[in-house]
């Protein structure tokens, strides 16, 4: 279950599976763009999870993904996201009659 953060500034963005995050802070502390911070909210397990503090700085480098011990967060460049979306596009629907 991914939740997208589709803010179209910067070169990329992060995806986070909220409920799997254990608030370890690896991604926040080692993001080279320093664009992550802890959320105010808790997930269901009671952990604060990372949110983009400055989305325009995210390059989608995926260093956060490489660090994340829980496979919760990963980053992707917008052009790669676009590529994946197009690859997954279904056939055009036949228009409904009438």
């Amino acid at each position, binding site marked *: 279950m991914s939740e997208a953060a589709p803010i179209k500034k910067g070169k990329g963005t992060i995806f986070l599976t909220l409920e799997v995050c254990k608030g*370890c802070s690896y991604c926040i*502390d080692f993001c080279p763009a320093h664009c992550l911070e802890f959320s105010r909210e808790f997930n269901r397990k009671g952990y604060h999870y990372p949110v983009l503090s400055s989305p325009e700085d995210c390059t989608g480098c995926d260093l956060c993904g490489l660090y994340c011990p829980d496979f919760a967060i990963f980053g992707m460049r917008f052009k790669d996201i676009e590529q994946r979306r197009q690859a997954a596009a279904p056939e055009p629907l036949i*228009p409904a009659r009438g």
Partner: protein
Amino acid sequence: MSATELPVCEIENPVMPYLRQERLPHIWCPGCGIGTTVNCFTRALTDSGMDLDRVAIVSGIGCTGRVAGYMNLDSFHTTHGRAIPFATGLRLANPDLAKVVVYSGDGDLSAIGGNHLIHAARRNMDLMVVCVNNFTYGMTGGQVAPTTPIGATQTTMPYGNFENPFNLPFLADACGAVYVARWTVYHVKQLAKAMLEGLKKKGFVFIEAMAPCPTLYSRRNRLGDGVDQLKYYKEKSKVVNGADTKEVGLTFQGDITVGKFVDRDRPTWLEAMNEHYTHHFGDRYTPYGGSHAQD
């Protein structure tokens, strides 16, 4: 009306196809470094271009030993300390497997498994060994391990460890491993690269990956959270490729030498066997394993 609406696309974490997703979430603690090493490993698998149907992973017992259970490869969770001989049997019985990786912890590999480690290195068995070193026996509650630095407190050294620890890269080097490296889970890019080199390397590969155990090693020694250990790794590590492994021993919260220390070539056990028997028997001998090619 035209109805070519693109649906919202579920972008999957690129690591997911490598994992047995029905078994997630995993059992590792918040801030445990094992999951990070798994990311590096999957990155290395992708970059290697290997046929993943023919890559097998063998683990022992312990927290790191649970890695096999989460990997979407032919995976074997064996007995404590005996991942290396199991992997030896697997490897020798099917030389067409692209790679056999042993993924286990410092206690499993160097204590109960120590004998098998030194012999497999001596023989130059074609195995890649990833040793996640968190300086403790995590699964059983944080007992002293052969890698625990002097002065660290663990449950079976309740007044501080007074026992001299192993210098694992030195041990592997001395026994004849052809590739020896140490990185920490702070050095994710380098660790992934080392694993990639290890996958491609023929012979006995030993990669030590230092990782935090926040729940036990760090907590008992008041070292903060996992991220505090990563900050320690960042601050105190020095990259010395080609370092003399004799000099890379570790002390409690002291300097850490990381890097690729050994990268040499010598015939694997199987290559030596085939060459020897071909020499001895001539045409009567069919080399074992036929096209034992690594791709």
